[in-house]
């Protein structure tokens, strides 16, 4: 399976990523018995206080074609760098309310270190390199553009 040529996958999910999808994704790995460790990062929309009000949701947009090409490039680089068994990336598009999940990164390996380091690096690269934008919707009906730190 790891010898199979990998092709770009759609990473985008419309709206929030449900806890059920995450649970199902974990369950899907039970047959891969060479895995010894999973690492999961979940990004959650935070109710930040802004000058114009507090954040109630983030509306995500993306340059989808470019983002998918970039995600594929990152994916290949991480697979080449770490001995991973599996890697999954899901990012929301459209509106995600505070408290809901907007990013799900999931790596698996034989031993924990590779999964953990790869997951970390993936999250950093996704946030820095994917052409995705978050518009933070405020309770005042105004909005501000999210800035990644």
């Amino acid at each position, binding site marked *: 399976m790891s010898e199979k040529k990998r092709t770009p996958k759609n990473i985008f999910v419309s709206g929030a990523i449900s806890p059920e999808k995450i649970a199902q994704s974990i369950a899907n790995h039970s047959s891969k018995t060479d895995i010894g460790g999973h690492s999961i990062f979940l990004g959650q929309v935070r109710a930040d206080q802004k000058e114009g009000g507090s954040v109630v949701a983030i509306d995500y947009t993306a340059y989808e074609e470019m*983002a998918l090409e970039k995600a594929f490039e990152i994916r290949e680089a991480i697979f080449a760098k770490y001995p991973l068994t599996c890697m999954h990336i899901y*990012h929301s598009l459209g509106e995600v309310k505070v408290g809901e999940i*907007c*990013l799900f990164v999931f790596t698996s390996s034989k031993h924990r270190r590779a999964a953990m380091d790869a997951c970390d690096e993936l999250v950093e690269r996704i*946030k820095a390199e994917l052409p995705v*934008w*978050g*518009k933070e919707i405020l309770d005042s009906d105004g909005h501000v*553009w999210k800035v990644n730190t």
Partner: protein
Amino acid sequence: MYNKINIKAFGMIAEKLGNTALEWDACEDTDGLRKELEARFPDLKEMKYSIAINKTLIVGNVRLPEQAEVALLPPFSGG
């Protein structure tokens, strides 16, 4: 040479331009394009944005190939 190029705009840039797509007179290079865009949309001068040609971020000044897909990208804020 084609006399029009299609520009995609995203996030805060699309908001300032009032549109996610623009048809624009062809330019020699990206510096020329920036100059023309900023003349028509002065708000752009105050904003940080990158340019992608055919889905690849460019560095410095780059000649615009014919029928290029040009995109104006404000700082990314995914995740």
